[in-house]
């Protein structure tokens, strides 16, 4: 059985169509495997080889990989949710009810998006502390740490803007509490809050702004910075693995 699948897969890999899509072609030599990474627009951010110790569990706990995983889940579920959502008052709330009672698996979709979002915020924090305690921010990786701090802020903003979208009491008052803090900024607190909400209180304008930020601007910023974050891993010499202690 296993050999049948394997040979069938080999046959597909040798078809012309496959070989036009994946430039590395078939074959499983290390050269081919290098090319599978180098000649792929997404994978070429990464190095062709990695230290085997960097793949062990203890140096990273895979927190970065898990964070990226939740981000993928959030993009997929988020796109599906956008099909059912209107960023207007009171339609936004009605759409939540539709997800609950009308849309097939709507509740599950919203659950998965919500819990993945919480998980991502938690994982980003965990990733940051893990990197700190390993000392992986040291040269030459200083700037990648800084990018990571900005990715933490973007994650928080993504989660915060998404929090308003259901337009229920929880969302409305959580964002009211948060946006009131912006008022405390000296000199231009009120202006910042006005810019954020598109008005002096949380209303339909604020919902629209948060929607655009949540679905367009912040995800694009996150994808861009994640790209740089990964590229810098390669440029800075791969994942940090501490030297073996001298006995």
């Amino acid at each position: 059985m296993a050999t049948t699948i394997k040979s069938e897969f080999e046959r597909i890999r040798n078809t012309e169509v496959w070989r036009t899509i994946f430039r590395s072609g078939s074959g499983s030599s290390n050269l081919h495997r290098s090319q599978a990474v180098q000649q792929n627009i997404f994978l070429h951010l990464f190095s062709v080889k990695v230290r085997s110790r960097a793949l062990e569990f203890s140096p990273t706990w895979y927190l970065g990989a898990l964070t990226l995983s939740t981000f993928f889940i959030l993009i997929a579920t988020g796109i599906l949710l956008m099909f059912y959502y209107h960023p207007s008052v009171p339609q936004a709330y009605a759409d939540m009810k539709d997800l609950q009672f009308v849309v097939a698996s709507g509740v599950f979709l919203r659950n998965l998006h919500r819990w993945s979002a919480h998980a991502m915020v938690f994982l980003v924090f965990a990733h940051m502390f893990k990197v700190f305690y390993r000392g992986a921010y040291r040269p030459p990786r200083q700037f990648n740490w800084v990018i990571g701090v900005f990715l933490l802020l973007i994650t928080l903003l993504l989660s915060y803007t998404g929090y308003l979208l259901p337009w229920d009491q929880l969302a409305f008052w959580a964002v009211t509490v948060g946006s009131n803090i912006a008022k405390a900024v000296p000199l231009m607190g009120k202006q910042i809050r006005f810019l954020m909400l598109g008005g002096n209180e949380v209303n339909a304008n604020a919902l629209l702004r948060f929607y655009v930020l949540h679905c367009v601007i912040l995800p694009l910023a996150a994808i861009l910075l994640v790209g740089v974050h990964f590229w810098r891993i390669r440029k800075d010499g791969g994942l940090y693995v501490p030297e073996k202690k001298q006995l």
Partner: protein
Amino acid sequence: MTDGPKMKPELKMQAEVQSDVRKNPRRIAFILRRSSPYVKAQDDGRVMTYPTALARFIIALEVAFVLLVWISLLANAPLEGIADPMHTPNPAKAPWYFLGLQELLHYFPPMVAGVLVPGLVVGALIVIPYFNINIEGESLWARDRKRRLMIVGVALVLFCIFLLVFDVIVALVPTILIGGLMLWSARFSPESPKLFHRWLASKPLSFWIMSWFLVELTILTVVGTFFRGPGWSWVLPWQS
């Protein structure tokens, strides 16, 4: 006999290089003391990114996906009544990751808790890798032990008094815990026979500050999430 090019047997080319270095020395590079390339011996077991590392990532993705699907099947995302600006819930809480800040807002004016503290935290996080003290990671007590002990002690006492004045018991307890551990660690030498003592003695200042931040963040968030009820009063989570 024809006069062809005569092969001289002693000039035969040799393709392989002798492996005996003493017999056959070859110069590869000069390494001067001043400009020597900084090469550290590393254990360099390497594997291919494709497929090995990629497979690991896909397993991580699947684990995350399975766990989150499982949670999503068991627990529903909260959905309350439609937003009503005329009716304020008590307490009105921010998302959980901001509840640490909201807890601080309970004690300090918004200018401090909402702007100054988060600004300082973000600024401090950004500059971590640009300070030599964080790069070297030298033990806090490695040099000037007495002077440093006094500075840390005074700073801790002043900070605790500050927290007491503002009645921030929630933040005071972790400060005393971590601060106490920090001062206690000065007692041990890096050559102490006990592993835990050696570990404590080896920690740099950045470790203590970050650990304090981690504990504060956790405790403030947990208190804000579970222990705060109407009017931000203290409640126990199982009583509400």
